[in-house]
């Protein structure tokens, strides 16, 4: 081995950093190396297995998507926005956003800067065979600053490393605080951590304070900046000249190793799986199975943060916390079939957990996939559908329809004169609207006032749109219903299909694939009528609050049109939570097992949310919400004095 002074003399230029330990190895790196090796093997095998479980077509689509410029831009945007900066959390809960991005972004920067330092000062060490796996992580242990030769470049990195370490430590501080008082950071409920979660969590908490200790103990050798050098002086003040730093490097390495070993079994797997999930999601690949392929990426991308706990409308009652998406995903990970089914069936499918999820995990879609595995094979017989629905059933305004006669007496539906008429606008009310005929009445009144020529697709009752079957997991049966309805609508020759039920609207838009037919919800259609001046409206000073139906708002992203129209007829006031944070009315068809009492509690909390700014009228654009709210208001009249529940069209056509 070359003595140090000779080595230095041999250098033409005096180096800033001296590789203190020529072998570039010390025993304390073993725990970390074992941990990271295990972790890398696990994630490598996992990735291959996951991609292999995706159907071939989807896999090809995934690889192709990585080269489509538009997707690349979206991928980069999402990777930086979601994985590093956590913009989605920042937007809703700033303190939580700070906490998370401090740990994630700070750690990322420390790893990157550590590697850059090694690349700049001891580039040979980046080679894996020369310790590249652990050297950049424990860089400060292995090097000596050459006293008197520290350049601005070196000081700059010292400062950055200390800065980001402090940044992380503030985040960790908040995280520890959150364990005791989560409400301060904006979370009412937090997830109950599992055993692996706890191990990973506590080792994660320890990593950075231990890093500070280790680096501060070596700071007089390896250099440092405001934080590490400052703390180093303190240690010298306490313990004198001789500092034993090796134990802290051991502890730091052990906590890192422990974290990486526990990571695949804990919620922290999301750190890396999230990347894969974002790529798969942006490639437009949907899960076909609740557990395999894309779904697996989704499950492991769940950070178990528990933001869905506060989001879930069921959680007005504490006993329902266990049905939240975060626990659904946990049980999917554990293959706990019984609990998976119980949770999958309970959900209202309001999609709020999906809308608020910082990782974009579509738990309702996974629940639907789970329901498919149970319910899709149940027997059914829809042989009556073709005769039930035919173009012959269309009726113009005011015309009574002979469909019954046609079906019962075997008359050909084509004999009906309405079939020959080609309406431009076709109005499909849907099953639910038929139970709340006030909506039909109001819609027809609006159509008449605006002079809209329309045909009524199901005046005497049609068949279901298929969405409820879809929600129950009977996709095959839903396809039959869709086929029958689709045929009827295509034969009608209409160019615009107006729907007054958001449940119908969602499935017509997504599953029917009606070529050349514009599918609109009546809020959109009526808003267009008002905007184009065809429908005269007058403004009143009635205080109106608008409730976003789940299927319309989060389901189809229609938030603006109903509000724009309502703004023309009254004074809109805000609800406590609106738009994608609106609370389900409790009447949703999505849930299979939620009972009436629990639903009533949800309705109550949803009403309280709407009445935050004491409006006179609650307006909704969904027959189910209308019925649920009307019932809830009339059930507790003493509580909701002078509040009326109205449908969107009713308010417009006044």
């Amino acid at each position, binding site marked *: 081995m070359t003595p140090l002074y000779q080595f230095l003399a041999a250098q033409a230029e005096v180096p800033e950093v001296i590789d203190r330990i020529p072998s570039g190895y010390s025993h304390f790196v073993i725990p970390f190396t074992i941990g990271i090796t295990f972790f890398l093997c696990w994630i490598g095998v996992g990735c291959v297995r996951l991609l292999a479980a995706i159907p071939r077509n989807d896999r090809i689509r995934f690889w192709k998507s990585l080269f489509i410029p538009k997707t690349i831009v979206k991928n980069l945007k999402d990777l930086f926005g979601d994985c590093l900066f956590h913009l989605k959390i920042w937007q809703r809960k700033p303190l939580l956003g700070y906490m998370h991005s401090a740990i994630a972004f700070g750690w990322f920067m420390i790893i990157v800067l550590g590697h850059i330092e090694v690349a700049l000062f001891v580039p040979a060490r980046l080679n894996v065979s020369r310790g590249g796996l652990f050297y950049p992580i424990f860089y400060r242990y292995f090097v000596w600053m050459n006293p008197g030769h520290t350049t601005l470049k070196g000081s700059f990195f010292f400062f950055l490393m200390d800065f980001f370490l402090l940044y992380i430590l503030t985040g960790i501080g908040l995280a520890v605080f959150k364990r005791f008082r989560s409400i301060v950071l904006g979370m009412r409920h937090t997830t109950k951590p599992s055993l692996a979660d706890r191990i990973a969590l506590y080792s994660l908490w320890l990593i950075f304070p231990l890093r500070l200790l280790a680096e501060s103990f070596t700071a007089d050798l390896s250099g440092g900046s405001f934080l590490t050098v400052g703390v180093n002086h303190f240690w010298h003040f306490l313990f004198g000249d001789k500092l034993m730093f090796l134990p802290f490097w051991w502890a730091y390495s052990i906590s890192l190793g422990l974290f990486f070993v526990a990571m695949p079994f804990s919620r922290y797997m999301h750190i890396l799986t999230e990347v894969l999930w974002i790529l798969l999601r942006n490639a437009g690949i949907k899960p076909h199975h609740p557990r395999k392929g894309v779904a697996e990426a989704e499950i492991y991308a769940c950070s178990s943060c528990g933001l869905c706990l506060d989001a879930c409308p069921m959680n007005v009652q504490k006993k329902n916390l266990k049905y939240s998406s975060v626990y659904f995903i946990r049980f999917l990970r554990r293959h706990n079939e019984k609990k998976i089914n119980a949770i999958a069936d309970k959900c209202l499918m309001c999609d709020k957990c999906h809308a608020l999820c910082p990782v974009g995990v579509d738990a309702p879609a996974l629940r639907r996939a789970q329901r498919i595995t149970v319910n899709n094979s149940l027997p059914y017989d829809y042989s009556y559908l073709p005769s039930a629905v035919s173009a012959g059933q269309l009726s113009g305004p005011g015309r009574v329809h002979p469909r019954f006669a046609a079906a019962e007496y075997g008359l050909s539906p084509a004999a009906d004169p309405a079939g020959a008429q080609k309406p431009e606008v076709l109005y499909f009310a849907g099953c639910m609207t038929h139970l709340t005929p006030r909506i039909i009445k109001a819609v027809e009144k609006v159509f008449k006032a605006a002079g809209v020529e329309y045909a009524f697709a199901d005046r005497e009752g049609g068949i279901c749109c298929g969405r409820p079957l879809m929600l*129950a997991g009977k996709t095959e049966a839903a396809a039959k219903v869709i086929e029958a309805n689709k045929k009827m609508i295509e034969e009608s020759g209409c160019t615009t299909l107006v729907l007054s039920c958001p449940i119908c609207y969602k499935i017509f838009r997504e599953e029917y694939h009606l070529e050349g037919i514009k599918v609109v919800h009546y809020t959109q259609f009526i808003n267009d009528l008002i905007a184009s001046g065809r429908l005269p409206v007058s403004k009143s000073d009635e205080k109106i609050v608008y409730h976003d139906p789940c299927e319309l708002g989060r389901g189809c992203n229609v938030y603006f049109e109903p509000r724009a129209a309502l703004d023309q007829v009254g004074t809109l006031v805000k609800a406590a939570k609106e738009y994608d944070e609106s609370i389900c009315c409790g009447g949703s068809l999505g849930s*299979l*097992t939620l009972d009436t009492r629990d639903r009533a509690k949800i309705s109550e909390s949803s009403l309280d949310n709407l009445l935050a700014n004491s409006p006179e009228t609650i307006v909704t654009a969904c027959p189910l919400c209308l019925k649920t709210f009307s019932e809830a208001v009339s059930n507790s009249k003493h509580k909701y004095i002078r509040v009326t529940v109205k449908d969107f069209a009713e308010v417009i056509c006044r």
Partner: protein
Amino acid sequence: MVDFGFGLVPSSRMNLDLFDKEKYEELAEIEPDVRICMACGSCTAVCTAGKYTRTSLREAIEDIKNAKPEKALEMLRACQLCGKCSMVCPRGINTRHLILSITKVYSAK
């Protein structure tokens, strides 16, 4: 009653000895609401599928209690799960889940 081997109307004869208590309890465990039905028939009155073909949840529940599970399944096979029945049920029965559960329990061999 004497069975003459022919009749003007289909036999409405019941044999409660055939009532499968075990299956009924199994059903009641996954959907307890089956016990609270008062057979008012609101569900049948609003049924979307019932307009076109014989479909009745009320009758299905009666049929199960009368030991005619095949008839019950027949009554529900056309159901589109649209949920109108749950909107009108005066007892607040979770009709959609009840229909799914009856089909699940009684069509399992």
